[in-house]
């Protein structure tokens, strides 16, 4: 390759870069900042229904939040604590019951489309018993909150310090589809640590570390 050619190609590349960057400048943010990210999930699980209307505690499903670095995405059998019995929304079940009443027959089991995906993943048959023909597969949730690999956030330290889940995750109880509420940047973390040290959390004095090695190792 001749040097002139390289120079020309480089210039074109640079120009192309500038052109493509300019419109994006208005919504400029740091690379990897995924605030607002709300990908569709394999099962349209609604936090608004579970955490909002039904008022399930966050840690009913995210059991490890108080014990481990990870809050944990609940294992599929956690869902079966309720969905062994709850197979469809109340309305659908009511409809079937009244319809069965009209037709003078036993009501069928109604399984909603989304919950059927769960049963499928767990390898259950129509009777909700394990079907030997099917292999259970984990539900491939799309990860919403994802910190860079060089950051180590610990849920249990924050839960025990009295930081509410909503402080970082936002009003999850009102989210039909889960989305990233905060920007999860280092500045945002450090601000909160500083504020907590100045004001305390719920009346408790705080000593939130500002050492690099609290999160980076």
């Amino acid at each position, binding site marked *: 390759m001749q040097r002139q050619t390289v120079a020309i190609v480089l210039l074109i590349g640079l120009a192309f870069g500038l052109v493509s960057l300019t419109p994006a400048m208005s919504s400029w943010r740091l690379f990897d900042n995924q605030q607002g990210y709300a990908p569709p999930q394999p099962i349209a699980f609604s936090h608004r229904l579970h955490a909002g209307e039904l008022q399930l505690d966050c840690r009913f499903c995210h059991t490890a939040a108080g014990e481990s670095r990870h809050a944990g995405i609940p294992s599929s*059998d956690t869902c079966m604590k309720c969905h062994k019995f709850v197979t469809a929304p109340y309305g659908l079940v009511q409809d079937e019951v009244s319809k069965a009443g009209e037709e003078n027959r036993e009501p069928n089991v109604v399984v909603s489309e989304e919950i059927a995906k769960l049963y499928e*993943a767990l390898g259950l048959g129509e009777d909700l018993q394990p079907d030997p023909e099917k292999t*259970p597969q984990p539900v491939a949730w799309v*990860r919403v909150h994802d910190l860079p690999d060089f950051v180590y956030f610990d849920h249990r330290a924050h839960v025990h310090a009295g930081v509410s889940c909503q402080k970082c995750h936002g009003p999850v109880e009102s989210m039909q589809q889960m989305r990233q509420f905060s920007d999860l940047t280092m500045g945002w973390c450090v601000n909160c640590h500083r504020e907590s040290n100045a004001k305390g959390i719920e009346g408790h004095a705080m000593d939130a570390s500002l*050492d690099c090695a609290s999160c980076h190792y």
Partner: protein
Amino acid sequence: MNDGTVNKYWKSPESRNRSVAMPERTLDESVAEESAAGTIDRRRFLEAAGFTLSLATVAGCDSARAPDKKALPLIEQPEGMVPGRMRYYASTCSGCSAACGLLAGVRDGRPLKMEGNPEHPLSRGGLCAVGQALPLGLYDSHRLDNPLKDGSNASWGDVDAEIIAALQQIEVSGGAVRMVTDTVTSPTLQASIDDFLSRFADARHVTFDAAGSGSIRRAHEKTHGAAVLPHYLFERADVIVSFGADFLGTWISPVEFTAAWRTRRVPDGPHPKMSYHAQLESRMTLTGSNADERLVIRPEEEGLVLSHLAAILAQRAGVSLTGSELAPAPIAAEQLQDLADRLWEARGRSLIVSASEDDQVQILVNFLNHVLGNYGKTLDMERPSHQQQGSDADVAALVKELRDGKVAALLVAGIDLTHYLPAHEKLVQAISQIPLTVSFAERWNDFAQLAKFVCPDHHILESWLDAEPVRGVFSLVQPTVQPLKGTRSILESLATWSEKPAFAQDVLRTNWQEKVFPRQNRVSDFGTFWDQSLHDGFAKIVTDPVTTSPFDQSAVALFDAAPEVIDYTLILHNTIAIPDSRHAHNPWLQELPDPVSKVTWDNYASVAPETAKELSLQDGDVVRIEAHDSGTTIELPAFVQPGQHPRVLSVALGYGSPGTDRFANIGPEWLESKSTVGRNGLVGTNAAPLLVLDDERLLHVHTGVRLTKTAAHHALATTQEHDSLDVPPEVAPLGGERRHAIEETTLVQFAANPKSGSHAHPLGDVQLWAEDHPQEGHAWGMAIDLNACSGCSACLIACQSENNVPVVGRDEVRRQREMHWIRIDRYYSGEGANTTVSHQPMMCQHCDNAPCETVCPVLATVHSEEGLNQQVYNRCVGTRYCANNCPYKVRRFNWFDYPHNDVFENLSLNPDVTVRSRGVMEKCSMCVQRIQEAKIESQCSGEPIVDGQIQPACQQTCPASAIVFGDLNDPDSKVSAAMNTPRGYRVLEELNVRPSVGYLRIVRNRETDTHAEDHHDG
């Protein structure tokens, strides 16, 4: 300080007396095979790189969203499992036959980190480098995935059917069945083997160890009427005299022996006392490097020295010993007398050990221990060791049978049979004639290549098994993960071929219920006993003692003649990193610098400096070693080893294993990268052809070998001169500047003045960051007792496993780019046979006035409130100023993105530590992830952190308990106490960098300080 150019301490013969000019870079371009004949020049390369970068930037800026990442939860969460939390399961190491106790750390279903089991009665919380490297072996993509038939994949069903049919035929025809294993410490596996063999008319189990102790058992048969290997109790010995037994490094049970030996190496207190350890050996072993007195003799001379000792001590004890006039001893008469005096003084508290393969030498050792009244005190015969049961005679008989074509079935487990035997070609031919050959190898090896069937056993972390390393101490092995490959437990294979298939767990449980449980009386119910044993990892059982007869002196015969010198004597030995060829597949162990020579990725012929001078040999010059008797030759690079006997060569076994061709391209790929394997396509050369196999014995000492220099050169990758604390001559003040890293004294001087040996440069008052860094909370620090540290390098692999330290390959090691966060600096001092060795673990010293911090332009390395020197990878831009300014040379730069392409192997990475990318600096973090874990747990529970609760990986595994970590702000902590003893000092204190890591001075139990050096008054 600037009083001379000769260093008292030196790291290699070349670095000694080195004056102003550093040698040219030692990289020998002519050696290694050039990879990729590059046609791109540097400028062209940079142009292309720049273009690619600009396009990547443009592309990168435009993407607002990273690609979706999946988060796969468990389908069913097992009870008690918390995602992200480590759980520990007690198990037993299988790295060698010592069977140390370990705790396998399992996180999210993955075994990740091995720790020593602190409650284990033998290993006492220590674990060696090999034990630490187990997880990498588990996640080894080269492990066999299924059985093989004639070298190609087969199913278990087909293989079983064929083997069963062949065995039935042999059962009818009465053919000879031979099962070869290394020492089986597992009573259950032994029972399975016996059961399997019982149905054949002519069946034998041959035990073959890579280095056996058969002579010790044979000698005890003659002197005590019981062929046993005594259990040596070093913790009870005030005087230890070892004849070539490397008990801290490779002999029988090094972790246990190191822990025991160390208990007598603490001179602190009002009346300083320490054991006296003399080592008589011909090559520089790790044990010899730690001895108070090291005397260099040829292996053939051991008998003569022992005879002299026997004559003196027999006379004192009033035992008559007949013998003619003894030839003069190869050591000075005063030394002999001194040894005898010390031993006599410490009757019942002394211990003589020898690794000799000569029965008569071992009988003399027994005689001496008997005369000194050591039996029942420092040697336990009632509950002997089962750790080495190899029988040379059986192996010799087997080889004869193989050659005569008398074997119908040969099954080999544990040891790579043909790799460890001489006369390879004849053997291969003989074995290929055998109708049924079965290998249980986990991965490709020499015998597996020959075997008709390869039936791979599980990795130990997937297995159910047990061990009884010492009579009455039972250990359990439990699986920590579902088998990752299509392998099968050897217990299950043997059961299937006996046509009574059973699960390994059931075989084990049944055996314990029938054979172990009835022998104890603590628990009445088997279920409780089993659960308790599984939880603890071991069970101590009261057993009937082995009965021995009174000492029979009739076998004792003195060596009266001085053995003649025939050319050179060759010693074939095992190394700490590769105790046998099963571990040659493990890149962590291959890249572990040998604790004494500091060579990685190769075996070599160690020669004395005198020999090197005689033949004008330099490190890496290829030499030819030729046996007079058999005419066998091998060619190896030479390595000049101070402290070696001038007429002795030593070569490590276990290298040149067929599976090591996989390392050809290990390490980063770049224009100048070179292969890690040698000309033979393997790592190192197999030295087994030079073993001597006669009718009765397999000898590792070969007398009468010829040594010649060849024209070839093979540059060794040795780290011995890397990261020197010395000031490079070109920047030092006139006359050079010496920097003292090692401080040592003698017991006599220490008793008189506990501060003796100190260079006493008190810390200055100047603190750089006193105002910013008040350090009111914790101040983490570490104390390392150099008197306890044996240099075994277990900490190095523990750190590698804990902190995701990459492997760089041989060529990169030669370029001084090894990445280990902790290194063991090995210094020599003294002359010739008096060469003294000092080991010093060196890692980031976490200085309060850290020189690295002041020069970082981007604040990527800063001080924490708790005294840690933090390295922030995501801030680092790779100027490397910090590494240049570090006086301890402990910082490591990522010259490359070290390959993490092997998805399976990546499962061994610790998820709590960042995998560093190219262009960033890294170094010891004092396992800050463990500190954080403990701090957060303490915040959550409200319980304060207890001293000793946080253990960095290096401290946890240390067999010698030489490392103490803790809070320097807590005056009652162990680390504060250690630092405040008179032996405490800091390396390069005079620079006032105020390190948080301190060392405890070496105290040698010597009458005189042969290396006395007056620092302040001179």
